[in-house]
């Protein structure tokens, strides 16, 4: 089989993994003239597909042959999709060829499980080893790790990779055993704990001040599939909170369960819940950067985020007694809870108000979303008055963009 055909099959097989980040690692370059590549810290998206996803890394599977039968997965053993397997050298050459043309930041390599977890992991690690040691590749490498593989193999993976990830797949143990019978939730978490230990150790200096060997300097991440089972958003967010807290993950990716070719009869297909995925990311951001707890974001019996309103606005409407917030007096933690106010503008307001009072005009020039903010804020030249308590406020703040997208007119 030609490399081109393999690439088609193995990119098709890899596209359901949402992760594409090439950020968060150490800075490197190849100014010494040996090898090739660099990393920038923030990462670069070299292209975007019409699905809105960034193309930063060459995201492929080493092979989509797989022994497992995860119901949601396009590569499960019982699926009739075409199969292929790259040789190690083919992946190495493809990565370098794409990199030299500035198409990518590096490689995101994953694999179906062939023979056994250890064998598969060994093959994946060998690609990274050859790139690093034989070609002096200094671009980004993200390896998907297999939780059942031997700890020594995970340790080797961390030596070559900038980021490691293990997909948690589903937020509850019950869903995992129902939909991915060969996967073991306890083993997944145990591997995450093990990785965290090594990642933390790789960052500490020893007593003698010597740097320990680098281990996955970009940390670890995971992915949760949304909409393949009946789990509600509350459970998803508390699972995320636990993952961030306990294993110090850099990112939890939410992947709306999407129609796949040759789906399993056990899992009827539907359109992917993209709006839900979007709200989960917003809620995730609120937990990581805005000081919200998962239980504040979702209240009530339903356990689901509103689809037609961003979760911060929804929270504010439930807690109107806390508003209006005086932007010139409120502490930072309160400013972060004002709908429409992002981290950057909070910093700007804090800096500006030490010099003089912040007024409405200032917010306009900071490009803050004024209309969303006005009911909740107080300034020397603005008070929301009765609008904050108006029954119609909720209807006014609904997000019309979550309406289905119109196609066709785009081009």
């Amino acid at each position, binding site marked *: 089989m030609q490399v081109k055909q393999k690439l088609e099959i193995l*990119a098709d097989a890899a596209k359901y993994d949402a992760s594409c980040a090439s950020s968060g690692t150490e800075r490197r370059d190849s*100014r010494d003239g*040996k090898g*090739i590549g660099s990393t920038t810290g923030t990462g670069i998206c070299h292209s975007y597909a019409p*699905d809105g996803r960034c193309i930063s890394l060459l995201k492929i599977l080493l092979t989509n042959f797989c022994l497992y039968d995860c119901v949601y997965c396009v590569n499960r053993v019982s699926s009739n999709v075409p199969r292929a397997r790259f040789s190690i050298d083919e992946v190495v050459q493809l990565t370098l060829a794409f990199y030299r043309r*500035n198409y990518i930041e590096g490689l995101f390599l994953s694999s179906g499980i062939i023979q056994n977890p250890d064998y598969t992991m060994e093959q994946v690690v060998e690609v990274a080893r050859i790139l690093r040691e034989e070609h002096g590749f200094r671009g980004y490498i993200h390896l998907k790790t297999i939780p059942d593989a031997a700890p020594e193999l995970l340790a080797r993976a961390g030596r070559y990779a900038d980021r490691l990830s293990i997909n948690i797949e589903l937020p509850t143990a019950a869903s995992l055993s129902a939909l991915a019978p060969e996967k073991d939730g306890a083993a997944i978490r145990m591997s995450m704990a093990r990785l965290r230990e090594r990642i933390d150790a790789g960052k500490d200096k020893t007593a003698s001040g010597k740097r320990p060997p680098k281990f996955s300097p970009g940390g670890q991440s995971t992915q949760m599939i949304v909409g393949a089972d009946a789990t509600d958003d509350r459970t998803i967010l508390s699972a995320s909170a636990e993952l961030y807290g306990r294993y110090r993950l850099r990112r939890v990716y939410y992947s709306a369960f999407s129609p796949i070719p040759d789906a399993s009869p056990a899992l009827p297909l539907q359109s*992917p819940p993209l709006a839900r995925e979007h709200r989960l990311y917003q809620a995730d951001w609120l937990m990581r950067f805005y000081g919200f707890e998962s239980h504040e974001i979702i209240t009530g019996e339903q356990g689901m985020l509103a689809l037609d309103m961003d979760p911060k606005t929804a929270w504010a409407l439930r807690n109107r007694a806390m508003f209006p917030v005086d932007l010139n007096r409120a502490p930072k933690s309160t400013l972060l809870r004002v709908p429409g106010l992002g981290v950057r503008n909070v910093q700007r307001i804090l800096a500006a108000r030490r010099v003089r009072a912040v007024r409405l005009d200032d917010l306009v020039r*900071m490009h803050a979303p004024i209309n969303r903010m006005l009911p909740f804020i107080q300034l020397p030249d603005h008070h929301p008055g009765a609008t904050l308590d108006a029954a119609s406020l909720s209807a006014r703040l609904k997000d019309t963009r979550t309406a289905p*997208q119109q196609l066709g007119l785009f081009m």
Partner: protein
Amino acid sequence: MHNVYLQDETDIEGWRAAARRLVSQGVAPQDVDWYVRPAADEAVQEDFLAMANDAANPAGDQFCVAAQGKANIVPSAMPDGQQQPSGDSVRLMVPRQFVELVRPVILHRAPERFGLLYRALWRLQRERGLMRLAGDPDIARLNAMVKAVRRDMHKMTAFVRFREAMVEGRPRYLAWFEPEHHIMAAIAPFFIGRFAAMDWTIMSPRMGMHWDGDMLHFLPGGKPEALPAEDAGEALWLSYYRHIFNPARLKLKAMQKEMPKKYWHNLPEAELITALIADAGTRTQAMLERAPEPPRRKVVGYRRKPRRPDIASGNE
């Protein structure tokens, strides 16, 4: 009226020297006109320039200190034609936030950037907290310019696409890119740091640059026709782009926000976009309507090995 003539569009040292002198002479911003000298000869001479030092000092925080190691800086002439006095004779106190603004703002293409920077510098002598006021009209405008330049630089690192050609027996990587602002020299360190061992050339309408593995050479502007035609390496990239796309989740606004159409004509994969979008609906519908099929291969149930003892006991 004071007229300042800068050497070229990105004459940061010239601007600094003139601004320093004008402030010390108490010249108000409305009394200064800033000009960039027209290039003496349209066919710019090849300019050989070592970039090593410059790359290490992207923004620099030495407003009061002489520039370090940049070979192509010629002090701007004084309005009356005299050479300027040594810059160190006048020391201005400016906050770091302003110093960091100067270089990116000067890379912006807006002609008013020199005067705007000078006005901010002038105001800073009286308004100590000015840099903290993101809502001040001048600061907001400067911030917006910095953002535009940084974005232009970032998009250039993302969207330059090299094609491979053999030149004198060595592979050379060639690209055509059209930056919005005067960022070519400023972005060179990125490409050198990443592709130091390759020979590469990036051409743009106003100027080009060529790295020979050792030195960076600035070239006059060029034309996109000089780029070699598509080759097999690019075909693989197009295959990848086609297949990494998930037709079941069209998000066109998200794509266009980060990859606006103005870049498309220089991105080989962009020619696929229309067809991918057009087919997405039918492809998704076909997946949704397809009746599940039993596996065509024999499926052997996978049996997991018993858990490793260290996992079972949880002795992490």
